[in-house]
């Protein structure tokens, strides 16, 4: 319908009120023409918006520095992204079962996620753990739990993602290695990854488990160990996603994520590693929010910025060191419990953006996440979403299909420019470690989060079902609710208690002593942790021992005492 017709209709004012909505809908237009992060978007972009650019220098073909258009020339033709579903629920046994289920249904990577108790470094029988074991993931208290989790899965065939972010990542790595060795695998051939980003995890509420110095120490221990012993293993995922979920904007996500990454890099260099030795195994975890174009621009900018950073700041020569390798997690905070099936639509857009941006590994939220832990059905649907993108939409045919778009290219520049500004700001307060220590970053997160809520309150940001097109709330969750099997926690707690009774005290004490020495003498703690694990030491005992050496309470919550004095 043309503009003049619209005018004609406008002239004729409507008598019946119930048509007001209709007319209003008829003339409705996007309430905001800003990006999600609040940058004004022009009505139209033309070649002028790219006038200044030099293709080879600034953009370049996929597979060529600065990798704006992707890390590999053939992109998805070489290989689809890894389609992931994160699982972690109830006991190690329950989790093994769900992992096998996703695997069977075409999930091409295994992801198991730690629950709050494990991330906090508590054993299942810790007084505070008992209420929450297995509620949000899986708790691995000792080597036997890890054995159950692995079960019959062939470790040399799969690529396993161990999702432990806090300082507990060190015990997790130790437990995984211990089990692999016991099963006779050559760990240098194992593929997979561990999240191991303790610094960022303080912002997810695990501060007691992640004091800054201990985070840098144990985080880097894992990285160093893997660099030397497990060349095929990705030893960290700097988690920009969790930062973004705090409510910050797209360029802030890049700036603060890179800031934290550099904390580790600087430490590894202090330890005498060369950038090209370890950088090729560095990976990131990125958010994909609902503003498709901004997210694509953000990721393109991140690729370009990381390549420059590694080359120019750290003098990397190996192109693989310059690769911004990233996995995407669709934005959990964009999902809402109102009209929950709408989330399937949001997830699809966000997943699409990730693929268009050249993602290496994608995890789609389950539509029911704002209500409960993902149901089997929710998981499956998330996986199907990825499969539809991969097989039906044709978006996999071309790498960086938006490359050259006047809008996307100029938005990419905007993202880079803004991210650099935020990085300078961080330098201004004395670098990232200082920004964290002085809680400067906390305050930044707080102000941004409040801004986001107000945007929705004031209708600057419209969310269907929240501040527009609301309907009476559903009484039930369309595809059912996930519950935690009652018995799971009990059985696991029993398991730990039994283990404490049955294990060889003398052997245990020796191993713990070794670990304490390693930590005290500033050596890498992972080998000692592996030994201790094989000697039946629990997660809490491994971490507690190292914590004490660093002058922290044995128990992050300062409730139980060390049994080793």
């Amino acid at each position, binding site marked *: *319908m043309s*503009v003049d017709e619209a005018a004609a209709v406008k002239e004729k004012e409507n008598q019946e009120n119930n048509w007001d*909505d*209709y007319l209003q*809908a008829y003339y409705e237009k*996007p309430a905001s*023409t800003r990006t999600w992060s609040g940058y004004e978007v*022009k*009505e139209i*972009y033309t070649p002028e918006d790219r006038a200044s650019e030099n293709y080879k220098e600034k953009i370049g073909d996929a597979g060529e520095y600065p990798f704006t258009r992707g890390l590999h020339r*053939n*992109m998805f033709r*070489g*290989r*689809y992204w890894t389609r992931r579903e994160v699982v972690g629920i109830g006991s190690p046994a329950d989790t093994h079962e769900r992992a096998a289920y996703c695997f069977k*249904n075409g*999930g*091409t*990577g295994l*992801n198991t*996620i730690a629950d709050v108790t494990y991330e906090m470094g508590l054993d299942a029988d810790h007084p505070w753990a008992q209420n929450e074991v297995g509620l949000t993931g899986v708790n691995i208290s000792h080597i036997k739990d890890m054995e159950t989790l692995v079960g019959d899965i062939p470790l040399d065939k799969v*690529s*396993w993602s161990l*999702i432990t972010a806090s300082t507990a990542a060190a015990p997790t790595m130790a437990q995984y290695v211990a089990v692999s060795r016991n099963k006779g695998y050559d760990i240098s051939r194992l593929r997979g990854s561990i*999240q191991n980003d303790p610094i960022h995890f303080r912002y997810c509420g695990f501060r007691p488990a992640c004091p800054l110095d201990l985070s840098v120490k144990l985080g880097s221990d894992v990285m160093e160990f893997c660099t030397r012993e497990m060349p095929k293993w*990705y030893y960290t*995922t700097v*988690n920009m996603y969790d930062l973004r979920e705090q409510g910050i904007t797209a360029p802030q996500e890049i700036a603060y994520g890179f800031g934290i990454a550099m904390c580790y890099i600087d430490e590894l260099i202090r330890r005498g590693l060369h950038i090209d030795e370890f950088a090729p195994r560095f*990976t*990131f975890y990125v958010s994909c929010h*609902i*503003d*498709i*174009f901004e997210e694509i621009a953000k990721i393109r900018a991140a690729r370009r910025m990381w390549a420059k950073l590694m080359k120019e700041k750290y003098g990397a020569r190996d192109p693989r060191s310059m690769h911004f390798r*990233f996995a995407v997690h669709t934005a959990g905070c964009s999902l809402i419990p109102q*009209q929950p099936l709408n989330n399937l*639509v949001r997830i699809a*857009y966000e997943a699409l953006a990730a693929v268009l941006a050249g993602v290496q*590994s994608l995890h789609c939220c389950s539509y029911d996440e704002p209500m409960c832990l993902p149901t089997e059905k929710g998981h499956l649907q998330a996986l199907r*979403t990825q*499969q*539809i993108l991969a*097989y*039906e*939409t*044709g978006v996999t*045919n*071309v*790498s960086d*299909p*938006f*490359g*050259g*778009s006047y*809008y996307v*290219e100029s938005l990419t520049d905007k993202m880079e420019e803004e991210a650099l500004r935020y990085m300078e700001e961080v330098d201004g307060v004395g670098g990232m470690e200082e920004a964290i220590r002085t809680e400067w970053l906390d305050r930044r997160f707080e102000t941004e989060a409040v801004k986001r809520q107000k945007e929705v309150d004031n209708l600057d940001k419209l*969310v*269907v079902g929240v501040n*527009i*097109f609301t309907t009476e709330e559903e009484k039930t969750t369309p595809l059912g609710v996930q519950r935690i099997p009652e018995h799971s926690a009990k059985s696991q707690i029993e398991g730990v208690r039994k283990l404490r009774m049955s294990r060889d005290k003398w052997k245990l004490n020796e191993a713990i002593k070794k670990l304490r020495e390693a930590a005290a003498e500033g050596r890498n703690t992972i080998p000692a942790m592996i030994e201790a694990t094989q000697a039946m030491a629990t997660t809490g005992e491994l971490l507690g021992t190292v914590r004490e050496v660093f002058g922290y309470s044995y128990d992050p919550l300062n409730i139980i005492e060390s049994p080793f004095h």
Partner: protein
Amino acid sequence: MAQDTTANTNPDPFAGIAPVKNLSGFEINPLYGPEDVKGMDFERDVGLPGEYPYVRGVYSTMYRVRPWTIRQLGSLGPPGEANKRIRQLVDMGANGISICLDMPTIMGRDSDDPLAEGEVGCCGGVAIDTIQDMRELLAGIELDKISINFVSNSQSAVILAMFCALAEERGLPWNLLTGTMQNDALKEYQAQKSYYFPPRPSMRLIMDTISFCMRNLPRFNPISISGYHLASAGATPMQELAFTLANGFTYVEEGIKSGMSVDDFAPRLSFFFKVHNDLFENVAKFRAARRIWARTMKEKFWAKNPASWRFRVHTQTSGSSLTAQQMENNIIRTTIQALSAVMAGTQSLHTNAFDEAFSVPTPHSERLALRTQQIILHESGAASTIDPLAGSYYVEALTQQMEEACEKYFQSIAEMGGVIAGIEKGYFQREIAESAFRYQRSLEKGARIVVGLNKYTEEEESPIALRELDSEFEKNKVAALKKYKEDRDQDLLRAKGEELRAVCKGRDNVMPALISAVRAGMTLGEAIGHMRDIFGVYREQAVF
């Protein structure tokens, strides 16, 4: 959390072999760069929205001033039911309504026709026999505000007549009426196959409705030239583009032949496209269509009024891409298709409900379909700037490729003497049948994958509530129609019948006669019957 970037180690037969041909069969390069758009001249080939050649959109402000019309399907067998659904949709924020007809109506039969038995009000179509049905269908709906899109073809003249008669009853001047009549006979012969008159009289009826609307219903789109059905029958996106435009140009030629001046009626021609899963191909298709239409109208038909150059299009997501297996997957498909329609700059959009694949949408699934559009508009940022893909090496190259492929088709169509000749030779039917066959084979060979259909199939079906049609409905409808027929002034009716036949034999516009006929109570079946006697019936030779 998930971050493995190592080679995929899960044995997965198809992983890594992405289809390198799109649906139109074009070879797609792994990467497009500046050299792929070397020949492109921004001013000449792309330009700005609202400016010739309109590649970037037919209006200069597009969604920033007014977004696409959110148009949903408001039809359910019983006219009264349909009326309720229409009101529901408007409450939920839809601002356009499409109405499908049931099989008997489409075939020009009344509900009491023996051939209609068992199909009255079937598959979500409304049964329209008489002006009374039209009254029920549109009760309380302001015809000058809600744009109603009648998915009606061979019987369009009669439906339009009822629509006009109804407006008259309500004392609503015709020149305020808004809406659209699909009224595209050519694609019926090519694909949809719901025709009865031969092509030439069909063409005359269409010209009658166009010129009638031109004079009396200036805000009403008398025709929506549809590629959707060609695609549903199996045409590739590129064939959809070529054939639809070819049909469009044919209507223009016919219009000029029938003595109208191009700028009088061309601005009222509107189009109807399908969006399939390949979103870049979709975007290229729309952009190419706008460029070809503008250039041809200006350079070949000497249209002066920019309104004649504008390719205005309604879009529907692909029903044929939906699967009855794992129905929730359809939500994802529709989502991506809808996004591509918006990025392509459609004027109006209909998103399918995820259960449409094998039932009439429930209010619940209808709502979700509607919300899908609202999420694009308000959350995705895709409506913030116009033609966001412009400049993309891939999209610009693909747009050019589409245009070139089209020109080839225009060539061969011209050589066989135009579209109607082509239809009579069964050319389009054959082309489309071949594509459909090729697609089917590619599915069977697994060269093309449809999730849940030929990969990741499952046993159990999704427990989603489906809508049941009340079986009593047909009985009551037939009874009511019988009663209606008895109550009419039979003499008057006979007179009107004669009058109509006379007009059909002659050259005058059939609309006035039809309007007074339906006013006198003539049913759709009777009206079509009279015309069938005069115009004869078309039989196509089977195509193999």
